[in-house]
């Protein structure tokens, strides 16, 4: 469904994505794993056309996202949903208006229809009855669930989740994981999930892609990843502080650094 080919993205000299290629299958859940700063969010931004890669191609079905005109991109985006890392709810709008927003912008519907649809999505994320609250009155977990309801309101074919469970308590995280799985199983929603939560990734993924400083270092099924021999991947999965992935990013020796300065 989505093919990323040799994508490079540099921000003022910093290579956030370094020659990444990957495939995201229709109707499958693909999890992009990696430590913070490894380029996960950047990859989502290139795929969705929010940013243009420095080089490389991104095919969404037949069309190359990097070549589309604004109008075509908008048509494509109506089939996509995106759950942003912080939710990205509009502060000035209530929960109800946030979720109804895409409907009001793109569909001419009677208020009664909108109300029903919003209620359905709120029910789905377990927040029915919260319509009147403002985003500032919600906890982090509730915000993410409202944001999820909003990204699902147009019944997208593809949903991108940017760290859907990070910062949530284990129960809320479990609820979100189950939701992602259910949406995929019942509606066949193609899902791309960015995460650094190994347990959750193993739990929901059909396929896992691991990024490391902007490079793809592994791609495969949960079994493939679990049985890998790549030291970097093993270290990441087991969360060990020592290994080929340095904890400190400075290449200078610590003592040298202190003594000389």
């Amino acid at each position, binding site marked *: 469904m989505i093919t990323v080919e040799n994508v490079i993205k540099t921000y003022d000299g910093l290579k956030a994505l370094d020659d990444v290629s990957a495939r995201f299958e229709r109707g499958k859940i693909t999890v992009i794993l990696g430590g913070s700063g490894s380029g996960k969010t950047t990859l989502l931004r290139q795929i969705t056309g929010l940013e243009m890669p420095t080089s490389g191609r991104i095919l969404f079905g037949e069309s190359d996202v990097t070549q589309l005109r604004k109008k075509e991109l908008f048509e494509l985006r109506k089939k996509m949903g995106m759950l942003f890392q912080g939710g990205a709810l509009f502060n000035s709008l209530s929960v109800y208006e946030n979720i109804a927003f*895409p409907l009001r912008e793109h569909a001419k519907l009677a208020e009664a229809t909108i109300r029903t649809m919003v209620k359905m999505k709120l029910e789905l994320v377990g927040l029915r009855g919260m319509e009147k609250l403002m985003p500032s009155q919600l906890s982090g977990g509730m915000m993410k669930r409202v944001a999820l309801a909003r990204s699902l309101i147009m019944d997208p074919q593809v949903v991108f989740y940017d760290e859907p469970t990070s910062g949530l308590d284990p129960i809320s995280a479990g609820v979100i994981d189950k939701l992602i799985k259910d949406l995929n199983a019942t509606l066949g929603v193609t899902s791309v999930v960015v995460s650094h939560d190994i347990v959750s990734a193993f739990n929901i993924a059909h396929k896992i892609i691991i990024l490391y400083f902007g490079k793809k270092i592994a791609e495969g099924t949960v079994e493939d990843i679990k049985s890998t021999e790549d030291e970097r991947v093993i270290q990441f999965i087991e969360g060990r502080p020592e290994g080929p992935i340095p904890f400190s990013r400075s290449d200078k020796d610590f003592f040298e650094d202190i003594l000389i300065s």
Partner: protein
Amino acid sequence: MSLENFVRSVGRRGLDLVGTLGRSLIFLILSLFYGITPPFKIRRLIEQIKFIGVKSLIIVIITAVFTGMVLGLQGYYTLSKFGSQGLLGSAVALSIIRELGPVLTALMVTGRAGSSITAEIGIMQMTEQIKALDMMAVNPVKYVVSPKILAGIISLPILTAIFDLVGIGGGYLVGVKMLGVSEGAYFGEMVHAVEWVDVYGGFVKSIAFGLIVSWICCFIGYFARPTTEGVAEATTNAVVISSVSILVMDYVLTSLLL
């Protein structure tokens, strides 16, 4: 710093400045274009007029009363040196209509509404709300920026007109009610002295200032660094740059209109 480095750094800043000016101009043209092409965001526009216009009303009125009163006081003492207190009405009215009305109104709106426009857009950028709009196939410039710029252009002339009226009233309060200038002279001379070009000039200024304030504040907010410090810095910059631009533009327009 060696001379070469100095020249290079000045050159780079110069290029940066030209680049930023160019970008801000494109930003303005796009915002205006989106603002006047359908589908119109009438509800957003009304919200913004409320925010920029209606909510600035109180502060504009307070500023206007006291400005008018001070002008009445100062004008009275200056004019009485020449025994021409009768001209007080025209002096007050001309200063306000031509200069102080448009300029002070614009400065007040910058402080009250401009700063929060920058902060609001900066925070929307920082919390990915702008990207969320984009993802929902809603043009963020059209949705967020255009209504604010149009609201600025619409609100400022109205606020300025209110400032003018209230300010002339303030002058009347001090000049006529407190210092005893005759009411007939205050208004009679005013009607003679104020010409159509004065009113027209003030009107043109207020539109230009409305555009400048909303344009600068939106642009700086939109391109603020998406961090807490970035937004804070952007807010300060927006107020300073808008205020200075208003004063510079005031001189330019005055010299063109005279």
